[in-house]
């Protein structure tokens, strides 16, 4: 990998002694789409704000495009930002909102018009130039915020949960638009979200955070197929990975925790399975039904069955799975690459 476009080194930020983020190190290649993912309060927005310069780190260094910007002002970092609330100026119309930054930077009027037209074209907002943000729908406002970021023509764009105020249907279509935009414009995007579907579907690289610390950095498939620890395992995937105590599985007594994805579980004939569980609920999703299971030494066990299934809660169900689909974790919850040796007999 060439020198990273954005480089974050051991950054920490605290508020009155309370932890914001700590030990955050990140290398982002040019032109990539990076998602900062995690539950609320995990420090992903703080990390983004540290990148933007709206907050300054207590420790560590940040460089963008080879330039140290640790203490630089937001406007000196050559980046644009899309806010969760869109942060549109309510008294300015769409056109004025979009070209606000160009005006501040004293771009000539003719060039401004041209760039505005292009940005509105890309976002499909032509014809809305004279509307105020209050007269637009949520999706349109979101596109104005995108247009404002596009028109700045910066190599790095930061997005802070830009889709969280949209309804589910719109979210899916805007997700595609944003991804296409990023590829077409060749910009680097750092994208904060708590929605793993967004992160997994859009990003080249996902940074999963918890309690101010990075848990795992990797491609979406890495997080899914090779979770670094039990937190990642239980966060990524829908339904998340089930964790089973090794002691409950014959032959795996030496493994503290075993992870298992729902798609690798199948229902076995009574008496033929490896675990006997109780059905706790059925979740019908159309093409399949997720059947939630309980077992005294496992959490999050789910089995997927095709079509509509209604199994009364409390009924026993035997499940089976293959050894090669198991993930192993040590006592501290970290991933163990190989299956630990069997305890001496």
């Amino acid at each position, binding site marked *: 990998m060439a020198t990273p476009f954005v480089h974050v080194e051991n950054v920490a930020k605290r508020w009155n002694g309370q932890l914001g983020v700590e030990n955050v190190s990140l290398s982002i290649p040019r032109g990539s789409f990076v998602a900062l993912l995690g539950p609320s309060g995990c420090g992903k927005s703080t990390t983004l704000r540290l990148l*933007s310069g709206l907050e300054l780190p207590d420790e560590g260094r940040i460089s963008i495009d080879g330039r140290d910007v640790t203490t630089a002002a*937001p406007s000196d970092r050559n980046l644009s930002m899309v806010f969760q609330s869109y942060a549109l100026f309510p*008294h300015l119309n769409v056109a004025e909102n979009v070209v606000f930054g160009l005006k501040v930077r004293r771009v000539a009027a003719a060039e401004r018009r041209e760039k505005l037209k292009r940005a509105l074209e890309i976002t499909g907002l032509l014809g809305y130039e004279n509307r105020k943000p209050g007269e637009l729908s949520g999706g349109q406002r979101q596109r104005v915020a995108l247009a*404002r970021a596009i028109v700045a023509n910066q190599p790095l764009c930061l997005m802070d949960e830009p889709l969280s105020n949209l309804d589910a249907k719109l979210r899916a279509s805007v997700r595609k638009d944003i991804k296409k935009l990023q590829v077409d414009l060749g910009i680097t995007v750092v994208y904060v979200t708590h929605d793993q579907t967004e992160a997994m579907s859009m990003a080249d690289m996902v940074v999963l955070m918890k309690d101010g610390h990075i848990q795992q950095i990797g491609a979406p498939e890495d997080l899914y197929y090779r979770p670094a620890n039990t937190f990642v395992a239980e966060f990524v995937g829908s339904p998340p990975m089930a964790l089973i105590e090794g002691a409950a599985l014959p032959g795996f007594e030496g493994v503290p925790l075993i992870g298992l994805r729902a798609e690798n579980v199948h229902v076995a004939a009574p008496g033929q399975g490896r675990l006997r569980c109780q059905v706790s609920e059925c979740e019908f999703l159309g093409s399949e039904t997720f059947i939630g299971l309980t077992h005294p030494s496992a959490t999050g066990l789910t089995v997927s069955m095709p079509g509509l299934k209604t199994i009364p809660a409390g009924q026993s169900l035997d499940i089976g799975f293959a050894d090669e689909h198991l993930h192993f974790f040590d006592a501290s919850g970290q991933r163990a690459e190989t299956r630990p040796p069997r305890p001496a007999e």
Partner: protein
Amino acid sequence: MAHHVNIERRRQAVYGWLLLSPAVILLTTFAFYPSLATLWSSLFSRGTRRRPSEFVGTENYTDLFADPTFWKVVTNNLIYAGATIPISIAIALGMALWANSKIPARGFVRTAYFTPTVLPMIAAANLWLFFYTPGLGVLDQIGSLFGLPSVNWLGQPETALWAVIVVTIWKEAGFFMIFYLAALQTIPEDLKEAADIEGASRWTYTRRIVLPLLMPTTLFIMVNALINSVKLIDHLFILTKGGPNDASKLILYYIWEMAFAFFDAPHAAAMTILVLVVLGVVAGIKFTILDKRTHYQ
């Protein structure tokens, strides 16, 4: 069916009038009726024992227009309004922007600015009387430190009106600041952040974003300041009594004098009507013209 709809509509109408009635009764008794009564009495002459009051039409008004004191008082009031309105608004805005930023002892600063508003005008006037008193007053004491001669701020025609203006601004600015402060807090923080990312300076942000978003508040404050410039005369009773030589006399004070010192109610009524008309016209202009250019959230 139509019968039901009619009953329902009538019920709604009665309900509406019931809700309106307290305001209607109070406003009619204490605002509309007195205004009309004032207009009516301004059209009659002053009654004496020998010559009872009679209808004189606009004679009271023409009398006023011929009265040099009236014009003096009108000029004074224009200067008074022209100085107190913009200056107190500018100071209020400046203080609010400052008290809204992240400064140490922010609560103390806000309280300190608001204190003059809490004081009754009479108390404030007494305070300033102490400042202005020649020889003993604080202003003279400070002046004498630098070898400046004693000035009778309230006692000479050149300075009396301005001394009164200063007291009004001091009293009003803190009050208006509270409105600006409240309005500033409704501006989301991320607008500032978005402007920061775009590289807007603090001044650009204030001018292009904050001031336009404060326009509804400014409009409200302007109307209030205008009304105050006519109605706020308590301090005149303590400080100057309109003197010397009418130099600091304002319209409302003159109306009071006319009605209760000279017992010339018809002329006072005529003046009152004139003030009402002028205030109504100005407020109308503000709300129609400025309203179009104001963004309401």
